[in-house]
């Protein structure tokens, strides 16, 4: 076991982890961030994506012990039920969420993209959204939500 410090959603957590423990398990089972979803577990579906130092990363493919001292953002850190993030509001507005399982990852990928580029092209949006497998096929709605946020619609 190893003691590490993770900065999750702006708060610091000391946590004991096994060397082979994945970030997704630590976030969900030890720290209670259930907004992090697991899908395929081998990096294909992207449902477990969180932001590590602002960049999207599949948390099923990263050992937690590697991230000692790093900044992590999960969907819980994006907004709250009382105070939704503008992206969350736009997802609701355009009806981007169907089953909802991929939405935490989709929101984080979109948030990361918009932090780097305030007006991403359609191609850029599509390339980034490839990170997330949405079985409901809501990709066009994800794009609409981004347009709402950047003020194109």
């Amino acid at each position, binding site marked *: 076991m190893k003691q590490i410090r993770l900065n999750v959603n702006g708060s610091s957590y000391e946590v004991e982890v096994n*060397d082979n423990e994945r970030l997704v398990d630590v976030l969900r089972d030890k720290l209670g961030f259930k907004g992090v979803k697991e899908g395929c577990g081998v990096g*294909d579906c*992207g449902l477990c994506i969180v932001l590590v130092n602002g*960049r999207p*990363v599949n948390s099923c493919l*990263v*050992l937690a012990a*590697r991230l000692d001292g790093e900044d992590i953002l999960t969907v819980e850190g994006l907004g709250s039920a009382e105070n939704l993030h503008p992206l969350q509001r736009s997802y609701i507005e355009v009806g981007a969420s169907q089953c909802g399982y991929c939405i935490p990852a989709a929101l984080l990928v979109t948030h990361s993209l918009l932090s780097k580029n305030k007006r991403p092209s359609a191609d850029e949006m599509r390339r980034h959204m*490839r990170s997330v497998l949405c079985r409901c096929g809501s990709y066009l709605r994800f794009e609409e939500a981004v347009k709402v946020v950047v003020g194109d619609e």
Partner: protein
Amino acid sequence: MMHTHPEAPIIAGGVYTIASMIEKKIRPHHLIDISKIRELKQLEIGPEIVRAGALASHTALMETFAVSPAFSAFSQRYTSPSIANIATVGGSMALKSSTEDLITILLVHDAFIRVRTTEGLSELPLDQYLNMDIRHALVEEVRFLNPTTVSAMFEKIALGISYIPLISAAARLDRDGRGGWICRIATSHQRGEIPGRIHEAETIIQQQGPGDEAINNAAKAVESTIDPVSDLMAPSWYRKRVAAVLVKRLLLKLRDGEWP
């Protein structure tokens, strides 16, 4: 550590390792993580040569060389940005696999690879490394021609959500400064599932120049030289044919200056 624990394998790449652990293909008792060795993350960009540490990420390469058509295509046809953020140069090299687009691209950038074994450090051409059965070799660095100084392109036909290449190809076409041509051609499946350069096709272009007939002959040489695997995604003959088409297309675009 390699001397004291010769039985310990060097496992390529964290992404691959963890996926393999989940699928129970490997069950390591102990893992020694080298991801915090800062020196291995460095990307040193010289006017002609780039040195990429084994832990430099694919994203770092894509962002640094976004103006290069080959690296731009690498980025456009990549599985997903979230994987590119954690996948490393060293991981790709150590895997020696057709799934690693970066190998095909670096082959046409005349890449050399520096590996550490129990016998010490050695540096060898990437093409040679891919054909050697080196065990217990730790990839430390890859050096290659600065992509902004050469004319190279990359293309792939991919399937599935992981964008695994059915076949991919890269080509480079430059003047050598003495009126001749420098040509490099590589595919993802030169032998089985191992990428490699197609020297026969390169020689045709270098000797005859990039005329229509020479390009056709180079494409035919690709088709007749490579020996790709047959698997669920495609039979070998199909991969050969598509490789020839991709190489012809790339050479024509390079010759005619049809940059994306």
